[in-house]
């Protein structure tokens, strides 16, 4: 396997509506920014990967319609659609293309325009026999598993509220973030409208319009174009779509994410992730998810996630800052969200994260999460 690194990232301004732009124009905004950040031109791109959940926009074959926005005309281009993991899976697919030696430079772009469709209906189009009439889209099926997780681990509403506040305060230092709520308090989270027990409005991610792109380059090109590339040290995908009733203690066990994390830690030689990671960008669609992921990702022992957030370990000034960007809780254009995790982790390694930079970040983790149990993980570092 050849070495590969991220040498540039680009994001759009994310918002509830970006109806000033068509889908190809939105994609172009992110791709142009990524090429500028990488210091390359469109002629340098060998192949393009597009991540999107097309049902949310109601236009089939997004790779066809937005491809020209992604500089894909006349080039190899394919789409990845794996729910919430679409973006991270797209990045990993792009990595595979470069690491295999097939291409020197691959552009990966994820996008979603939730404002153009009806996301809840799209999410509800799960299995028509056993899911559809008894589950309720992204929120309902996730909320369903939280009550069990809270009992298993003793997690409280107050601890979840701390996660929600941390995300929005971090987002206030990220000019691209959708939700800008710098003064949010835990009490406001606890007082916000109940959406699906125990998830309240401010525990939940927004629906955003936005796009994010990264440029992945082979070693020779990475060194040519970038002083400090974000080397991709390990990747893992764990996709699984079983009958939900068969997943034993879903959020408590989160076997796919645990397995993906074990795999990338082993490949990167990481034994104690809390100490050896400098920053993490994890896909947390709900405040409670972040707590469950702390345990699945080995940031703490099982049952210690509540203590981690209470002790400020994952705050910007803590031992392991988690989601300096504000995370999915602050910005969620689904097809782009996984790419944003990778792009933000890469920006931290490249020292280009601006006001939310974690000083001296050398090793970063990015994760994706989708539907019931899909999971992706990627380790980025200052050295290959």
């Amino acid at each position, binding site marked *: 396997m050849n070495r590969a690194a991220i040498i540039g990232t680009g994001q759009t301004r994310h918002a509830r509506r970006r109806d000033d732009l068509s889908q190809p*124009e939105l994609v*172009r905004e992110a791709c142009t920014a990524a090429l500028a950040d990488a210091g390359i031109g469109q002629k340098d791109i060998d192949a393009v990967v597009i991540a999107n959940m097309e049902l949310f926009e*109601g236009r089939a074959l997004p790779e066809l319609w937005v491809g020209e*926005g992604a500089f894909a*005309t006349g080039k190899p281009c394919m789409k990845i659609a794996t729910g919430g993991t679409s973006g991270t899976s797209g990045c990993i697919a792009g990595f595979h293309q470069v690491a295999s030696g097939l291409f020197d430079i691959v552009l990966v772009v994820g996008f979603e325009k939730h*404002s153009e469709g*009806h996301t809840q*209906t799209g999410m509800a189009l799960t299995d*028509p026999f056993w899911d559809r009439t008894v589950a309720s889209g992204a929120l309902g099926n996730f909320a369903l598993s939280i009550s069990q997780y809270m009992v298993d681990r003793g997690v409280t509403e107050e601890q979840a509220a701390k996660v929600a506040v941390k995300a929005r305060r971090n987002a206030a230092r990220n000019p691209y973030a959708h939700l800008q709520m710098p003064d949010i308090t835990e009490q406001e989270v606890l007082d916000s409208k109940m959406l699906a027990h125990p998830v309240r409005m401010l525990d939940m991610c927004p629906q955003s319009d936005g796009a994010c792109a990264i440029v992945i380059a082979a070693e020779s090109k990475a060194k040519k174009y970038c002083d400090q590339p974000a080397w991709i040290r390990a990747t893992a995908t764990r996709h699984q779509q079983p009958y939900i009733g068969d997943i034993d203690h879903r959020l408590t066990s989160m076997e796919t994410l645990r397995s993906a994390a074990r795999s990338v830690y082993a490949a990167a030689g990481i034994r104690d992730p809390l100490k050896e990671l400098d920053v993490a960008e994890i896909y947390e669609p709900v405040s409670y998810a972040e707590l469950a992921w702390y345990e699945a990702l080995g940031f703490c022992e099982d049952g210690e996630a509540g203590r981690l957030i209470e002790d400020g370990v994952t705050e910007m000034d803590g031992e392991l800052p988690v989601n300096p960007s504000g995370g999915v809780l602050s910005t969620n254009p689904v097809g782009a969200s996984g790419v944003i995790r990778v792009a933000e982790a890469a920006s931290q390694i490249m020292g280009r994260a601006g006001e939310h930079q974690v000083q001296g970040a050398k090793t970063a983790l990015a994760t994706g999460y989708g539907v019931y149990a899909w999971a992706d993980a990627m380790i980025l570092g200052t050295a290959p």
Partner: protein
Amino acid sequence: MIREEKIQIPFVYAAGQAGSRFLVALRDDGRIMGSACAACGHVSVPTRSFCPACSESDLSDVELAGEGNLVSWTEIPGRGVFALINLDGADGALLHRLIDSPDKLAVGQRVRAQFAETRKAHISDLAGFVVTGAGP
């Protein structure tokens, strides 16, 4: 067991910067706008934010003639004649339909745009094209 369901999902679509300029000019002024690429000179229609020929984004709007040549056509019984039309001044062709088409259609025939009386910023604000003569 077979289960029947019907799924209805509402959508809105943003035409975007370039698409909106085309639709507004068509609705308000009965003009057909295209885009000329500063990088390669290609003139596309409808208006674009990036050139379909070279992908660059340095484009400027140009007004195109309401006349052109029939590039290709097909007639579907009961649905009419669909056509690709190369408007004078454009490199690319516009996808639309012919109205009141003669018995004998031929590639290269001259066609002219007809506009709808009430327009609503939609491609159907162009009612269609009529054949006006043999090709050059």
